[in-house]
C-alpha cells in the first residue's frame, strides 16, 4: 500500500459484482468452517436440530439487519430499531389478546414500523438533522414511552393462531422461510432496480447522485420506510416465537443488528455493501454464541472470544478488500 489510501467509495464499478460475491463467500466460508471446527470438538453441534434451532432463534436479527444494511449503505444509521421492535411486538401482542383478527395483529405492526421509520427518514432528509441524533432521540422516546404506557406488564394468553413463527412454509419453518425470501428479494432489488441502485448512489456521493437524476432526499425516506418494513417483519417473527411478550425493549438489540450489518461488509461510510452479507453475518454471530457453549469454554470468557472472532472476521474482510483494491489499481 502506498501512504495515501484509496478512497473506499471510488472503487471501479466494474468490479462491484465480483466484490459482492467474494464478500459473501468469505462469510459463508466462516459459517461453514466454524460449524466443521466445532463439529470436531462436539459432533452434536452438527445435528440438524441444532443448526435449525440456531437459524430459528435468530432469524429476526437477520431480517432486521437487511433493513439496517440499506440504511447504512445510504450513508445513515439507525439506533432506534431495538426499541421499535419492542414497541411493535407489544402493539401486535396487545391487539391479538384484545381479540383483533390475527391478520390485523400481524399487519398493524408492519404498517406502524413503516410509518415511524419513514417519519424519521423525512426528518433526516428534509430537516437535515443527522440520523444518529434523530434515531438516538427516537430510541429514548420509544423506550420510555413503552414503559410509561404498559408499565412493563407482560402479555400472556396469546391466541394459538397468533404464533406465525410456529407455522411452516413448504416444510420450512416460517422464520427461516421469511429470512431467506426477504434476503433474496432485497438483494435482487438492490442490485437490479433503479431505486435500489439509487441507495448506493446516495450513500456514495449525494451530490453526484443528484446530478445523475437521483433525488437523495426521497431515497433516504424510502430507505428508512423499507427499514421500518423489515423491522415490522422481524417483529412478527420475534413476537410470535415465545408464549409471552415482555413489553420492554430487548436489551442491546440495536447493537446486535448494527454489528450484523457492518460485519456483513457494509461500509459505514455508505455506498458499498450487501444485504446477503448482513444476513450471513447475523447467522455467523448467532452460530458463534451457540458454538462457544458447545466447546466448553469457560462462560466467563465467551464474550471476549465472541468479540475477538467478530474482530477477526472484520479485519480479514478489510485486508482482503484492500489487497483487491490495490491489485485493481495496478491494472
Amino acid at each position, binding site marked *: 500500500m502506498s501512504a495515501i489510501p484509496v478512497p473506499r467509495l471510488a472503487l471501479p464499478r466494474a468490479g462491484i459484482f465480483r466484490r459482492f460475491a467474494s464478500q459473501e463467500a468469505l462469510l459463508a466460508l466462516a459459517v461453514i468452517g466454524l460449524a466443521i471446527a466445532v463439529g470436531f470438538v462436539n459432533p452434536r453441534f452438527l445435528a440438524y436440530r441444532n443448526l435449525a434451532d440456531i437459524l430459528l432463534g435468530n432469524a429476526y436479527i437477520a431480517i432486521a439487519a437487511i433493513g439496517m444494511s440499506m440504511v447504512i449503505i445510504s450513508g445513515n444509521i439507525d439506533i432506534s430499531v431495538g426499541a421499535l421492535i419492542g414497541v411493535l411486538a407489544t402493539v401486535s401482542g396487545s391487539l391479538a389478546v384484545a381479540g383483533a383478527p390475527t391478520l390485523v395483529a400481524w399487519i398493524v405492526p408492519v404498517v406502524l414500523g413503516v410509518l415511524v421509520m419513514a417519519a424519521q427518514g423525512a426528518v433526516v432528509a428534509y430537516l437535515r438533522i443527522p440520523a444518529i441524533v434523530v434515531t438516538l432521540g427516537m430510541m429514548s422516546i420509544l423506550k420510555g414511552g413503552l414503559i410509561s404506557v404498559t408499565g412493563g406488564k407482560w402479555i400472556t394468553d396469546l391466541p394459538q393462531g397468533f404464533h406465525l413463527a410456529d407455522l411452516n412454509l413448504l416444510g420450512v419453518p416460517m422464520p427461516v422461510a421469511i429470512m431467506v425470501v426477504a434476503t433474496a428479494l432485497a438483494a435482487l432489488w438492490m442490485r437490479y432496480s433503479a431505486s435500489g441502485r439509487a441507495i448506493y448512489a446516495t450513500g456514495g456521493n449525494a451530490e453526484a447522485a443528484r446530478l445523475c437524476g437521483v433525488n437523495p432526499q426521497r431515497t433516504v425516506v424510502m430507505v428508512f420506510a423499507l427499514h421500518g418494513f423489515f423491522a415490522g417483519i422481524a417483529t412478527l417473527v420475534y413476537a410470535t416465537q415465545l408464549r409471552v411478550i415482555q413489553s420492554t425493549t430487548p436489551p442491546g438489540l440495536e447493537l446486535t443488528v448494527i454489528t450484523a450489518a*457492518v460485519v456483513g461488509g457494509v461500509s459505514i461510510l455508505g455506498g458499498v455493501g450487501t444485504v446477503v452479507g448482513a444476513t450471513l453475518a447475523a447467522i455467523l454471530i448467532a452460530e458463534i454464541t451457540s458454538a462457544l457453549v458447545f466447546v466448553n469454554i469457560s462462560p466467563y470468557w465467551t464474550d471476549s472470544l465472541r468479540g475477538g472472532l467478530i474482530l477477526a472476521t472484520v479485519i480479514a474482510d478489510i485486508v482482503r478488500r484492500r489487497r483487491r483494491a490495490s491489485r485493481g489499481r495496478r491494472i
Partner: protein
Amino acid sequence: MSVFAASPGRRVPKWLARHETLLAIILVAALAGLGAFNNRFLTVDNLLNQGRLMTEIGLIALPMTFVIITGGIDLSVGAIVGLSAVMLGYSWKTFGFPLPLAIAFALAVGGLAGFVNGFVITRVKVPPLIMTIATLALYRGLAEGVSQARSVRGYPEWFYGLGQGEWLGVPTQLLLLVVLIVIAGVALDRTTFGRTLYAIGSNETAARFSALDVDRTKVVIYTLSGLASGLAAVVLVSRVTTTRMDMGMGYELDVIAAVVLGGTSIFGGAGTIWGTVIGLVMIQLLKNGLALTGVKGDATIVVIGVALIMSTLIASSLQRRRE
C-alpha cells in the same frame, strides 16, 4: 474549517449564529422554566452535586469530541470503563499492587485499549465504527473474563476522596473535569493539533497532501479516548466504592448524545469543546430538573429524546435562517 466560520455574518454578529450560543440560550430558558417549578433545583448544593454525577460522562466526552471532529467515532468507551475498573481492582487485590500503582495500571490499560483501536483503524484501515463496535464486545468480555464477574471492594479510605470528597466545597472530580475541559478547549481552539483535527474531518485526503501526520494524530486521539475512559473508571470506582465488570455499560450513547447535542457534526469537520460542555450540562440538568419536578424516570427518557431532536432542529433551523 467549520461551516460556521465560513458563514457570512453581515447583519447578526457571528457568535450569535453559532450553534453553541443558540443551545446555551435554549439551556438557560429550560433551566429558568424548571427552576420556577421547583425551589430545590437551582441551588448551589444541587448543581454541584449534579456536577459530581456527570463527571464520568464529561471526561469521556472531551476526547470523543476530538474523535467525532475527525469524522470518526468510538463506541468502545463504555467497555473500556469496565475493563479499566476491573484492572484497578484486580491488580490491587490479586497482584497486590499498591493502590497508586494500580490506578496507574488502570489508566495504562485504558490508554492501551484506545491505542489498539487507533492503531488498527489507521494501519489496517478498519472504519472506526466497525473497529470500536468489535472492541466494545471484546473489552467488555475481557473485563468479565479477568474479573470472573467478581466485584472488588474494601478500598482504603483515602481513595474515596477523589469520588466523594470535596475541595473548597466543590466536588473533587468536578475540579478535575473543569481543568481538563479548559485544557481540551485550548488544545482544540488554539493549537496546531486542534487545527489538524478539523483538517482531517473536513477533508482527509487534502490533509494528507498538506503533509499533516493524519495517522499519528488519529492514534493519539483514540489513545486519549481510552485514557479518559480509564480516568472515568477510576473516578467512578472511587465514587461508588466498588468495582464491577459491567461498569460503564451504555456510556457510549450518553457520551455521543452530549457531543452531538453540543453541535459537533457527526460527519466531521465541525464542533467545539464548549458546545460539548453545554450539551453535557443540558442533558444532566434536564434529567435532574424533571425528576425534582416530579416527572418519573420513564417519562424523563421520553422528554430527553424529544429535547435531543428538537434542540438540534431549532438550533440548525435558526442558524440556517440567519445565514
